[in-house]
């Protein structure tokens, strides 16, 4: 299960990066990066997942003493949450950039923005 | 410092003898040349007449201070060179002022007159003078090279730079001469000798028709007289160095006269049978032939 998740996570990453590098349209690139980020998140979660364990919520079902043996690692999940937030921020920024670029340059093709080079 | 009057007297006497000897000898050499080509040639005392004639000129011009001093430098160079080299071996008095310096002094003092003359001639503003100087300087730098090497070789051979010591080492028979003990060095030196005597094939410096006699083209009257004096004195002074270094020196004035004449004739003989080199040709000549012999000389010692 965890392997499948991880595999699909990596597949999403590769897919996303492939998409980001092959699509010239800024919006498509942003979407592709979102896919890749999702893939990363999936990978993260899959790493933290331990088969047969329960969610890392300390309540009656999971007493504090035996928590370490019963729950899955909570840290990756926390990381994923953070990563999602950050991903959101970056995606928003990229979208803002795309908007601004389109407004100024009337183009969404990344290969049009090569005046800075060499 | 006390003045050594006898020594000065002897020096003056040396000068007198050598100038007169040079006057006669150069005339003689020209006469020989004339006879070879079937002419009668100049009179043996012609040099004296020319000298007096030049001094007796009534009008003179000057182009400036250096122009004026040029011949002075020139003659000082000749006289100095003669007096800095021991003339007659075995005589303290005929060694003149050789106490002031050794072989190195003689070698470098050669340039004193050249420098002054070049400066003086250049101040005349005559382009031919400048061209002649260019030629002369260009040629002499390379022509002197075999001599420098030969001198180095024999000073290594005799382990001294003292001319008197070098002559002393050659005494006791003709086969003690450097000519025989070190023929390669002698040969190298003779390249330089022929090259610096202002005779064909190395006389493009004073090419008379092309650049009317080159550096001295503006000189006349007493200037020319001084230079004429030097012209008979300087080659002999230089020949004396060669004589001392390679041909056993001279123990008396008679030997001196013979040897100087004989050595001098080497350049004459080479000159009469060779046409003139252009400057770059003579440079190449010395590099191609003179230099290897010189190198051989210092390698063989």
């Amino acid at each position: 299960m965890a392997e499948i998740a991880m595999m699909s996570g990596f597949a999403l990453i590769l897919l996303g990066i492939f998409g980001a590098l092959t699509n010239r349209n800024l919006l498509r690139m942003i979407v592709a990066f979102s896919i890749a980020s999702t893939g990363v998140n999936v990978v993260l979660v899959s790493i933290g997942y331990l088969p047969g364990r329960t969610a890392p919520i300390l309540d009656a079902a999971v007493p504090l003493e035996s928590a370490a043996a019963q729950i899955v690692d909570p840290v990756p999940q926390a990381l994923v949450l953070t990563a999602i937030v950050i991903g959101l921020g970056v995606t928003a920024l990229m979208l803002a950039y795309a908007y601004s670029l389109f407004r100024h340059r009337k183009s969404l093709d990344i290969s049009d923005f090569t005046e800075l080079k060499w | 410092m006390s003045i050594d009057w006898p020594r000065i007297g002897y020096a003056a006497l040396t000068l007198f003898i050598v100038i007169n000897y040079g006057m006669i000898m150069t005339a003689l050499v020209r006469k020989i040349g004339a006879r070879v080509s079937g002419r009668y040639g100049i009179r043996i005392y012609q040099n004296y007449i020319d000298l007096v004639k030049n001094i007796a000129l009534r009008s003179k011009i000057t182009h400036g201070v250096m122009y004026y001093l040029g011949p002075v430098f020139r003659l000082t160079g000749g006289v100095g060179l003669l007096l800095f080299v021991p003339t007659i071996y075995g005589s303290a008095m005929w060694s003149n002022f050789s106490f002031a310096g050794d072989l190195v002094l003689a070698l470098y003092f050669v340039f004193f007159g050249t420098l002054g003359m070049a400066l003086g001639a250049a101040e005349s503003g005559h382009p031919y003078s400048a061209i002649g100087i260019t030629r002369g300087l260009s040629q002499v730098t390379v022509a002197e090279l075999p001599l420098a090497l030969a001198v180095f070789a024999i000073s290594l051979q005799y382990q001294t730079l003292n001319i008197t010591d070098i002559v002393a080492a050659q005494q006791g028979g003709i086969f003690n001469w450097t000519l025989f003990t070190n023929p390669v060095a002698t040969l190298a030196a003779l390249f330089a000798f022929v090259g610096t005597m202002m005779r064909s094939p190395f006389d493009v410096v004073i090419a008379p028709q092309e650049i009317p006699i080159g550096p001295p083209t503006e000189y006349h009257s007493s200037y020319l007289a001084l230079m004429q004096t030097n012209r008979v004195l300087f080659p002999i002074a230089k020949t004396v160095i060669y004589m001392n270094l390679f041909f056993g020196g001279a123990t008396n004035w008679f030997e001196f006269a013979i040897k100087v004449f004989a050595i001098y004739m080497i350049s004459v003989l080479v000159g009469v049978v060779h046409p003139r080199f252009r400057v770059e040709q003579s440079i190449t000549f010395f590099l191609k032939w003179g230099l290897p012999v010189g190198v051989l000389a210092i390698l063989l010692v």
Partner: protein
Amino acid sequence: MKHMDPNFRKDTKTEFPQREELKPRKVTTPDGQVIDIEPLQDYFCQEPPKVHQKSYFKIVEDFYNWCRAESLWILAFGTGCGAIEMRPLMTPRFDAYRYGIQWRATPRQANLLMISGYLSVKTLKRAIRTYEQMQGPKYVVGLGSCTINGGMYWDSYNTIKKLEEYLPVDLYIAGCMPRPEALLAGFMELKKKIKAGNAEGANKYAEKFDWYKANQKAVIKDWDMPDYNW
């Protein structure tokens, strides 16, 4: 023989402009100052020639004259066809060297100017310059009829007729052309003249300088040099 053209180059109407390089000019110095250049004044000595006295002692002067006579240095300067007659003098056949005669390439060192044949006006200018650049005492020998009266160029429009009007001639050697033997004989005559103290051409030139200049300038229209070429 017909008479010489009395109107030889007497045309005074034509103006000859000053040579470009001799015109006064203004130049800017490196500091930006503008200065006047008068080439003739600035680049040439303007002194007239001087008359030189003989030596105080006659015996010295005689000795000097003997030396001058026995050491004739001829300027290697051929003006006309006579130049070709000079060359044999150096050969074994005539061997002028034995008389103390030598050739010099520069006027500074020569004291005998041979006008060897006809002298065109153009060459005259060079001859005058050369003569003036020689140091006195100096001698002029006219070679051939042309220097005496124009010879076969007697009616030429550009050949001067009487050399002595322009330069102080010490001796003429007649002939058209004189053979080298005649030249040698002429030299012997010149020597006699010098030894006798009569060859004072340089002083004569200085004394009658204005006369010579007037004659010279009368024929040389494009006079482009100082009056006396030191």
